[in-house]
């Protein structure tokens, strides 16, 4: 209850104005000035339509101002949540999201290096062939063909890992844009553009894009991290059997082939390597699928859904379903 009250308090009382809040306030003041000028023009030339337009737009501006006030409070509250639950050293949502991406990226590239190493070993062993010829007589044996069965799953793993790395880099770039431009640039510009009827759609989109980038995108990542952390270390349990395989370190895959041996040893070694890879699968799954794939997908879907809803709230719905299809 206390936490809920504290959250409500934070939502309603914007504390500590930083740079973007000032710019947003200046944008609202600029919009008021522009509407005032239109109203005065209408009054001076006796054009009641202009006065009515200015009044109508003023109400829109009040709505935008309320949205900003709510946003300031909301942002503070979400920052507080991310500080408490996310990365402990982060002061804002974006910092927490960036720290989360960097950690996941390190994990994914580490696993990718491990997969590359296995692939390299399997390919070298699989390509081996032994030859012996003296004075034109001899033999050639290739006893390592069984290792080629590892190439397909490893190649698929490469594709999945590549996707994961790509998604994380995309997230990183969007968070960079969010930090640099969402609230200091896109939001105030959107407020000014939203003041006029013809540019209301563009203004609404910029406001929605700013809010989605600044809040919904990082919060998607952080919430996914929170879910993941709860799964890995459930409260009240020291050694959770369910999550243990997902936190383990991958076993090294032993691959060694004697190309001159046509007996079962080489085949058994290759099958042994395959089994080790299968055992390692759950170690890779959590990082690859939950942290590096589900997290970004969740964040992007939250962002695109928020974009559509917020543009609608801002007065001009933009059909961003095409963007959602990128996910």
């Amino acid at each position, binding site marked *: 209850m206390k936490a809920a009250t504290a959250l409500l308090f934070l939502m309603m009382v914007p504390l500590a104005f930083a740079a973007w809040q000032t710019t947003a306030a200046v944008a609202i003041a600029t919009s008021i000035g522009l509407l005032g000028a239109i109203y005065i023009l209408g009054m001076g030339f006796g054009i009641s339509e202009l006065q009515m337009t200015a009044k109508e737009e003023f109400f829109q501006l009040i709505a935008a101002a309320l949205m900003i006030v709510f946003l300031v409070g909301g942002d503070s509250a979400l920052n507080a949540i991310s500080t408490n639950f996310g990365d402990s050293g982060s002061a804002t949502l974006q910092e927490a999201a960036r720290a989360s991406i960097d950690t996941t990226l390190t994990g994914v590239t580490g696993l990718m290096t491990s997969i590359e190493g296995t692939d390299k070993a399997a390919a070298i062993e699989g*390509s081996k062939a032994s030859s012996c010829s003296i004075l034109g007589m001899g033999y050639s044996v290739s006893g390592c063909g069984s290792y080629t069965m590892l190439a397909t799953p490893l190649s698929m793993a490469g594709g999945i890992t590549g996707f994961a790395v790509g998604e994380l880099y995309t997230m990183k770039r969007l968070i960079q844009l969010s930090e640099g431009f969402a609230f200091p640039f896109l939001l105030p510009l959107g407020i000014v553009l939203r003041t006029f009827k013809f540019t209301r759609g563009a203004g609404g989109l910029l406001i929605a894009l700013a809010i989605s980038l600044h809040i919904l995108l990082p919060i998607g990542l952080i919430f996914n991290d929170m879910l993941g952390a709860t799964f890995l270390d459930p409260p009240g349990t020291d050694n959770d059997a369910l999550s243990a395989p997902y936190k383990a370190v991958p076993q090294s895959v032993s691959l060694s082939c004697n190309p001159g041996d046509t007996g079962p040893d080489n085949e058994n070694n290759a099958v042994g390597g395959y089994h080790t890879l299968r055992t390692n699968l759950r170690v890779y799954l959590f990082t690859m699928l939950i942290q590096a794939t589900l997290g970004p997908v969740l964040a992007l879907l939250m962002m695109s859904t928020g974009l559509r809803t917020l543009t609608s709230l801002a007065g001009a719905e933009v059909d961003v379903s095409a963007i959602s299809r990128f996910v």
Partner: protein
Amino acid sequence: MAYLCGPEFGAFFSDSVLPLLVYAASALIGLIGIAYMAGTATSNAKLTLWSKTEAVQFVVSTVSVFLIITTMNTFCAIKINEIASIFDMPAAAGDPDIYAAANGYLLDAAIYSHNALTVVRYHLEAYTTLSFFNAFMCDLATGRIGWGCLFGYSGESQQPLGGYSVQTAAMNIFFNGAIIAHFMSLNFIFILLFVYKGFVFLFLPLGVFMRSMPYMRSFGSLLVALAISFLLIYPFLLAVMYLMRSVLVDADTGYTPLPVPMSGYDERRYDDMVNGGDMIAMSTLGEEYVWHCYFSVDGCGWSGDSKENLPGAIGFASNAFVAAVFFPSVALLATIASVGYIARLYGDEIDLSRITQLV
């Protein structure tokens, strides 16, 4: 290209678009006048009312055209650094106007996506070539010299650099992604060129005329809304992205997020190695030497910093997708949405949701 804010375009506007606008307006006024006279002469209240309504709509259309031209002139006068200074952002090189900035962003995105394509292609080429490198290791070896081949052919053949299927699979996906990003950036440039070449201006006289024709109000409104959206909203949103180019397309670091400059990913490696010594060295000096030919910043040899950067190449292609597909698509979707929104301001409902499916 007749630059939208240049004298050539002014000549095109005053010689082609303005006369057409005047013809359309004159024809419309004449038609409305005749209809009004006919209505009065035949005491047909419907016809008189139609004439009066269309006279008001004509004024609305004329004011819209005036607003478009005034806003365009303003866009030509506003320099992008003036906007940057308002938001305390770093100044852009060249200080273009809004229309040039919009074009500039898309050109930047095309360069950036092409650079991403180059880096991914370089890695893909290197991995493919290295994978097929074969070696025969003679038995009884002393270092790289195998005595087992002295009197015959005894040893092991293998592909010492064959293990690149993980990298190749990952690179294939992002090679496709980078191609799509590059093609999309070119596509967006062509849409902008279509606007800048002035064809959209022909929608204006047609729109003004059609809006007052019976049963053609929606079509006329659509033409005027298209002109407003593609002449004002689309370039403006792209110009906004131009101000974010330091991050979006890494404009301050040579259009690449990687520490190795683009010249380091020259894809003509194999051409360079066809002559003489390098080819012999590649055949005899072993896999490490071959690897360095592709991935060392110093070229063929046994030392030098690596420029192999698989996660970096993937990240580059991902960034290119954000810069050349995601953000310009948002601008286009907003423009299409504003067509519907502006048409609604003219009192007509136009459903463009099908068009957005094409994006």
